[in-house]
């Protein structure tokens, strides 16, 4: 895509206007997933397996169906792989179907086996108790290393693809290996080689809004769905496939969203609500409880990792090798490949080798969580680098600068980097007052770098001008990070009209072309690029109208500060024609003026960050307090800096939870032990210091304004940076997350 319109001088971009959804959200007017109602609406509830692994011998729904308040009961038999006229569901659609409603086996504690729609939520929950399910309980496994052992129970025979080497356990379903150079030769050149093992536990995305939807599907195959999601086109496509209906006949509207972080990029309850609605011929609302969210929606993968790095006395890394085993629940999809590809990406390495495994266990199907796979790998790699620096007496930022990837460096995952901003983040970290501030006794400081790829994806945007010269922008990417504000700023920049004169709406699937999910840190990049192009398309039409009015060629007109003006002295002597004067009579000068843009932009630009963390460890209780935190990250160009800082701070806050307290705890019975926020400890405001931020701007050559996505990279460095700070404070290397007080205490006592 030609980017001959690159811009570096900005009037609106880079300012910090009020958020457009602020009033709605603080007054409770904003409509989230559970806020929609329909006449005659029923309430749905889902029956879930209490077993980690069990064959479903028989389901008897007759007693539930006999209740007068119950209007429909569905099981797997009501979904399309059982429907004769549309057989052959396969690939990821089949996996999603198997996850939203169990087939022959319940594969994890919390797996859906049946669902009810009744006249009240209470009646629906009561009816679940009358559904009789006969299970044959099977052996289970929830630990990634145990799932790879020869005697581990097989979760699904034949789930492995071409990539898995022969002789591996059937639970290993994907394998990735990449790198370059000769690692053994590299290790031989090193003055010090450290090899260590690291573990991380699964954590949940922890969005505050549970999944919720309102579904209507008639026997004519036409449906309406309101739901909280990161991407309503993927919901439309997936639900249509699972229900055996035509995609275009299902109209999906995205509600406001109370957090997603990657966990709302797939479907869980939406196909179930649609199936219930089709059977009952009434609208059905389904709202998950928090416990259901924990038990049956995507946590991230857990990981078992071995990392070996060799370093010379001057800090040069001579070789690096990592083996990363990730479990992603009872389905393929754990991002072991991405853990491997991202782990060493910040460094310029002559010899590097990385291996990733995707392993199935009897746990819920993992879902994406900000930079999926990258934080775990960074934890292992950056911990080993920190230990090498400690043992060789080297400064951790100097060592990272010495080995940092730059433009032209061959990345650990293969190609050479274009313009990137890692060095700039490291230099900013070194110059930051935080880095030179003295530490108190009992405190330690940690540094880590982090990398993420970022993404483009299918994108459609429409922009329509009103007669008064204001503009409405229709985007298809749910606003999970302030995108309505940043789209308005980018449109304002091109149109030359105030931010306040632009309203950005997240359009439904019936009113705009296809849009990929709000994921991969893609929205400000891709929807932003499309908004700029759509606005430019409208500006071309505005210039045409001015040219016609002035009777001069269109190429003699240019757009400046919201007005058409002659492009030079030879073009003629005309006063600037403001946008509102052109739009006022646009209906009579050629018709309504709109701008459109549809594309799959391919220039997202990779992103790097560096974090500095101070931690204090209470040697009596093992409790860690984060006393100071600074995030430094390359944003390319910050469109609305406050939101960018918010993304940086959010990544750090979630990373603090992941590092210190959050974990999925399974009992011997394979049941999740802590499926409520009381027992699953996410950080609250009082757990956090003020998180300082520094926005580095190394423009992305793939975006007209230089934008790089910022949503994901911010969660890559925290696990390692915090682990390094805690290890330096405690005087003992922490190799397992979370670093909860009992675990830190055990490490301090030398039995961890």
């Amino acid at each position: 895509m030609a980017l001959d319109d690159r811009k570096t001088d900005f009037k609106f971009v880079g300012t910090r206007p009020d958020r457009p959804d602020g009033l709605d959200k603080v007054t409770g007017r904003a409509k989230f997933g559970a806020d929609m109602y329909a006449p005659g609406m029923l309430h749905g509830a889902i029956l879930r397996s209490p077993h980690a692994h069990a064959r479903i011998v028989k389901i008897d729904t007759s007693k539930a169906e006999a209740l007068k308040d119950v209007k429909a009961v569905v099981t797997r038999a009501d979904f399309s792989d059982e429907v004769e006229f549309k057989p052959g569901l396969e690939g990821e659609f089949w996996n999603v179907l198997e996850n939203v409603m169990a087939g022959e086996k319940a594969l994890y504690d919390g797996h859906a086996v049946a669902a009810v729609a009744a006249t009240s939520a209470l009646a629906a929950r009561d009816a679940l108790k009358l559904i009789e399910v006969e299970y044959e309980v099977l052996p289970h496994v929830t630990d990634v290393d145990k799932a790879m052992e020869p005697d581990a129970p097989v979760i699904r025979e034949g789930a492995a693809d071409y990539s898995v080497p022969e002789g591996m356990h059937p639970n290993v379903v994907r394998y990735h290996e990449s790198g370059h150079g000769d690692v053994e030769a590299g290790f031989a050149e090193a003055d010090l080689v450290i090899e260590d093992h690291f573990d991380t536990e699964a954590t949940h995305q922890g969005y505050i809004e549970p999944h919720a939807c309102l579904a209507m599907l008639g026997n004519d195959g036409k449906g309406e769905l309101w739901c909280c999601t990161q991407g309503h086109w993927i919901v439309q496509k997936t639900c249509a496939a699972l229900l055996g209906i035509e995609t275009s006949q299902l109209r999906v509207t995205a509600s406001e969203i109370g957090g997603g972080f990657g966990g709302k990029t797939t479907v869980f309850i939406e196909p179930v609500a649609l199936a219930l609605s089709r059977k009952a011929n009434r609208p059905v609302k389904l709202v998950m409880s928090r416990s259901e969210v924990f038990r049956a929606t995507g946590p991230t993968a857990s990981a078992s990792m071995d990392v070996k790095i060799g370093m010379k006395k001057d800090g040069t890394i001579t070789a690096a090798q990592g083996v990363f085993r990730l479990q992603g629940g009872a389905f393929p999809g754990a991002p072991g490949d991405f853990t491997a590809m991202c782990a060493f990406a910040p460094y310029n390495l002559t010899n590097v080798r990385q291996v990733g495994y995707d392993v199935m266990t009897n746990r819920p199907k993992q879902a994406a969580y900000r930079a999926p796979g990258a934080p775990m790998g960074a934890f292992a790699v950056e911990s080993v680098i920190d230990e090498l620096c400690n043992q060789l007496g080297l400064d951790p930022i100097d060592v990272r600068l010495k080995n940092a990837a730059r433009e032209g460096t061959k990345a650990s995952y293969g190609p050479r980097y274009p313009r990137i901003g890692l060095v700039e983040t490291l230099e900013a970290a070194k110059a930051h007052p935080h880095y030179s501030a003295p530490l108190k006794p009992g405190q330690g400081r940690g540094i880590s770098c982090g990398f993420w790829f970022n993404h483009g994806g299918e994108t459609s945007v429409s922009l329509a001008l009103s007669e008064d010269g204001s503009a409405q922008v229709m985007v298809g990417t749910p606003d999970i990070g302030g995108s309505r504000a940043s789209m308005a700023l980018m449109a304002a920049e091109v149109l030359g009209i105030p931010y306040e004169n632009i309203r950005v709406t997240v359009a439904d699937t019936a009113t705009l072309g296809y849009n990929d999910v709000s994921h991969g840190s893609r929205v400000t990049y891709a929807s932003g690029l499309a908004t700029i192009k759509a606005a430019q398309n409208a500006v071309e039409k505005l210039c045409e109208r001015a040219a016609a009015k002035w009777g001069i060629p269109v190429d003699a007109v240019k757009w400046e500060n919201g007005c058409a003006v002659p492009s030079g002295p030879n073009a003629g002597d005309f006063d600037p024609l403001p946008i509102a004067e052109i739009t006022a009579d646009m209906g009579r000068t050629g018709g309504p003026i709109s701008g459109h843009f549809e594309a799959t932009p391919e220039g997202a630009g990779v992103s790097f960050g560096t974090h500095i963390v101070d931690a204090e460890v209470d040697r009596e209780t093992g409790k860690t307090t984060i006393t100071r935190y600074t995030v430094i990250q390359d944003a390319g160009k910050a469109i609305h800096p406050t939101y960018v800082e918010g993304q940086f701070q959010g990544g750090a806050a979630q990373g603090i939870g992941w590092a210190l307290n959050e974990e999925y705890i399974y009992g011997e019975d394979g049941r999740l032990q802590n499926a409520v926020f009381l027992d699953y400890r996410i950080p609250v405001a009082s757990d956090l210091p003020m998180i300082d931020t520094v926005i580095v701007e190394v423009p992305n050559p793939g975006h007209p304004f230089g934008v790089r996505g910022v949503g994901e990279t911010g969660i890559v460095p925290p696990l390692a940076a915090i682990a390094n700070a805690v290890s330096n404070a405690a005087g003992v290397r922490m190799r397992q997350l979370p670093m909860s007080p009992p675990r830190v205490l055990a490490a301090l006592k030398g039995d961890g």
Partner: protein
Amino acid sequence: MVEVHLWSGLRSLTGGREVVEVEASNTGELLRELVRAYPQLEGPIQAGVSVAIDGRIIASGLTEPIPEGSEVYLMQRLRGG
């Protein structure tokens, strides 16, 4: 001819080669020719791959031109959260 660098996990599908050569002027042709020359690459390519051309990662596009002499890498298909 375009020199295509594969990730090392694919060597078992190309008779041990990590760099292969095919005739292609854009990303779609590249993937088609790779499968024609190395039928076992159909698995990974069907599963989804990205192509890096001189360091610029093309996540999924089949129409991106490959200039003469470019450095080309096949990568796992990018995903996000």
